[in-house]
C-alpha cells in the first residue's frame, strides 16, 4: 500500500474535523440546484490509487450515461444526414477492447489514420500522454481533436452540435449531467471522457491469479518467468509485471524494429529529444490477443509474428532503446526463444485477455438494447 497516501487521507479527515469543531459554524452556502450523482470508481486490487480525473470533470452517473450515448452515436460526426454517420465506436469497438482489427482507422471521407487505432484500456490511469507518441494531454482534448481531423470525423463543431441538439433525448441529459440544456464542445468532451474513464479492464485470468482466485498453467507460469527476466524474453521493463499490473510503464521506447525512422509521428516529433527517435508508447499488453494488428504501423498481424520479432527479428540502430538488450552484443537479433518458450510466452500473454471487459453491459452500445 502507498502509505503516504493513506496517511494523507487520514490527515485530511482530521483537518476537516478540526475545521468543523474549532470554528463557529458559518452560514451554509446556497445549496446548488444542480446535483449530479457522484460516481465512485472502484480501484481494483493492486491497481494504482492515483487516478487521472481532472478537477473540473468529476465522474457522475449522469455524465457517464450521457458520455456512453455520445460515444456510440453516429450523429457525432455531424454528417449522418449525408450518409456519413460515424461515432467513436466506429473505430473503437468493445469486442476488440475498443481497438479495431482493421489496423488503421478510416474516417468519414475514407482517409485513413496515420497509425493504427489504440484500444481504450484503463485510460483513467494514463498520466496525460495519450496517443502513440503521447502528444495528447487528456481524453477531453482527444475528443476535441477527433471532430475536425480529416482522417476521423472530418467535421465541424457547429455541425456536430446541431446534430446532437436535434435529438430530443439529449438536452435533458445535458441538463442532468451539467446543470443546463446547453450543448457545447466542452460538455461533449467531458461526458465522453467520463464514460471512457470507466473502461476498466481488471478481470483477466492474470488478475484472477493475482487475486488468488485462479492458477496459471505450467506453460503460462513459464511464460511469465520468461516475460519478467532479463535472461529470458525480457519484456517487463517496458510492459509491466504483476507488481505493475497496468502492463505498461506509459513510457516511450524505440523497440528496435527498423534501421531508418520516420520521425513524423514518433515521440521525437513531440520532445525533439534524439533519444526519442523511432520511439512510441509501450502500449499495455492487456487484451493484446484482441488488439492486433500490432505496433503503431500495424506491421505484425498476429501475436506469433510479434513473438518471432522479439525472438529473432530485432534490428540494431543507434536509436534502439538501451533496454532492448537482445539487440546488442553478446546477443544479436533477439531473445532466441525455442518453440516451447515461444508457446509459453504466448500462453502467458493470452492470460491478459479480459472477456468480462469486452462483454461488460455497462460499456456496450446503449442504442442496441
Amino acid at each position: 500500500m502507498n502509505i503516504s497516501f493513506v496517511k494523507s487521507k487520514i490527515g485530511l479527515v482530521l483537518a476537516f474535523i478540526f475545521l468543523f469543531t474549532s470554528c463557529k459554524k458559518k452560514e451554509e452556502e446556497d445549496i446548488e440546484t444542480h446535483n449530479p450523482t457522484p460516481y465512485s470508481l472502484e480501484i481494483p486490487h493492486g491497481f494504482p490509487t492515483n487516478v487521472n480525473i481532472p478537477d473540473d470533470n468529476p465522474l457522475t452517473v449522469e455524465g457517464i450515461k450521457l458520455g456512453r450515448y455520445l460515444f456510440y452515436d453516429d450523429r457525432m460526426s455531424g454528417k449522418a444526414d449525408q450518409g456519413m454517420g460515424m461515432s467513436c465506436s466506429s473505430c473503437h469497438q468493445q469486442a476488440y477492447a475498443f481497438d479495431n482489427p482493421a489496423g488503421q482507422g478510416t474516417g468519414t471521407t475514407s482517409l485513413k489514420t496515420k497509425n493504427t487505432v489504440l484500444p481504450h484500456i484503463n485510460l483513467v490511469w494514463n498520466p496525460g500522454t495519450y496517443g502513440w507518441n503521447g502528444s495528447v494531454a487528456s481524453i477531453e482534448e482527444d475528443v476535441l481533436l477527433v471532430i475536425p481531423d480529416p482522417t476521423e470525423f472530418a467535421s465541424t463543431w457547429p455541425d456536430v452540435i446541431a446534430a446532437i441538439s436535434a435529438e430530443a433525448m439529449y438536452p435533458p441529459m445535458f441538463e442532468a449531467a451539467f446543470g443546463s440544456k446547453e450543448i457545447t464542445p466542452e460538455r461533449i468532451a467531458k461526458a465522453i471522457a467520463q464514460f471512457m474513464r470507466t473502461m476498466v479492464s481488471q478481470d483477466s485470468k492474470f488478475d484472477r491469479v493475482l487475486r488468488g482466485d485462479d492458477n496459471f498453467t505450467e506453460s503460462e507460469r513459464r511464460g511469465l518467468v520468461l516475460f519478467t527476466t532479463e535472461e529470458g524474453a525480457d519484456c517487463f521493463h517496458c510492459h509491466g509485471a504483476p507488481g505493475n499490473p497496468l502492463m505498461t510503464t506509459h513510457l516511450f521506447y524505440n523497440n528496435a524494429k527498423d534501421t531508418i525512422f520516420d520521425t513524423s509521428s514518433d515521440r521525437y516529433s513531440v520532445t525533439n529529444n534524439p533519444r526519442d527517435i523511432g520511439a512510441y508508447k509501450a502500449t499495455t499488453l492487456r487484451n493484446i490477443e484482441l488488439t492486433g494488428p500490432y505496433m503503431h504501423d500495424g506491421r505484425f498481424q498476429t501475436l506469433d509474428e510479434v513473438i518471432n520479432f522479439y525472438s529473432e527479428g530485432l534490428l540494431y540502430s543507434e536509436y534502439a532503446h538501451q533496454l532492448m538488450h537482445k539487440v546488442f552484443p553478446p546477443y544479436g537479433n533477439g531473445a532466441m526463444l525455442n518453440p516451447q518458450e515461444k508457446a509459453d510466452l504466448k500462453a502467458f500473454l493470452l492470460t491478459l485477455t479480459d472477456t468480462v471487459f469486452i462483454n461488460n453491459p455497462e460499456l456496450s452500445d446503449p442504442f442496441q438494447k
Partner: protein
Amino acid sequence: MITMKIKISLFVLAALMLVSCKKKDETDTSPKTGKISISFEHFISNQPAIVNDYIYTNAAGNVYSFFLVRYFISDVELYKSDGSVVKIDKWTDHFYVDTDIPHTLEWNVFDEISIGNFDSLSFRFGFSDTKNQSFMFVNQPESNMVWPEELGGGYHYLQLEGKWIDPNGIKIGYAFHLGRGQHYDGSGNPVPPFIDNSFRVSLPNSAFSVETDKTTKLTLRMNIENWFEEPHLYDHNQWGGDIMQQQPAMLLAKENGWNVFSFNLNNN
C-alpha cells in the same frame, strides 16, 4: 499527483482555519523544531551530467553516455552533535528520485526536526530486505521500479542507464540495475535465499544546523562515475548491458556505491 493535491488542500484548509477562526490565546509551548529539504543532483566528473552525448570515459576506459538515473533512498538518519539520532520516518521513510521527473529532485521533508547542530547524515541506498516488500507501491512511477518475483521481488534500488561504445564501435545500452541478487542452482534456476544488495551511505562531512521556522536546504550529489571506479574497476565490456541476473556484477556496484554520494549545504 494526488498526494500533491491533498497536500495543497491540507494547506488551504490550514490557511482557512487560521483566518476563519478567532485567534485563540497563544501559549508558547511550541516545540523547538525546524525543517529540512534535500535536493538531488547528478554529476559526472564534477559537472552536471549531460544527457545523450558520448563524452564520458569511465575508469575502465569505456566511452559512455548518460541517459537517466532512478533510485530510492530510505531510512535517513541525522546525527546530532549531542549524540542523539533523528530518523526521517514521520510521513514517509523513503524517497524516489528520477532525473526524468523534475519534482522528484527535491524532497521537502515532512518531519519536524529538533533544532540544533548536526554532524552528519546517512541513508540506505535502496531498501533493506525487511522493507523491500513486493506490491508496496501501486502508483507509477514507483511501481515501474518493480523487481521481478522470480529474481527476488521488491523493487529496483537503482536504474542507471545510457550506452557505451564497445571495442567494435557498437553503441550498447547499459541498464546498470541494482536490486536483490540471486543464487542459481545447477540447472540455472534462481534459488532462495535472495541477496540484499542495499547498503548504507554515510556522509561524514555533512554538518548542518536546523533552526526554528527555517528550512535548511541540503543537497545530495550522486557522482555517477564513482559507480564504476572504487574499489572495483567496473568494465561494461566484461559485464554487458543487463546485470539483474549477475550477482557478481551487482556486488561490484554495491561495493562501489559507498562513495558515490557527496553532501552540500546551500547557504540561502
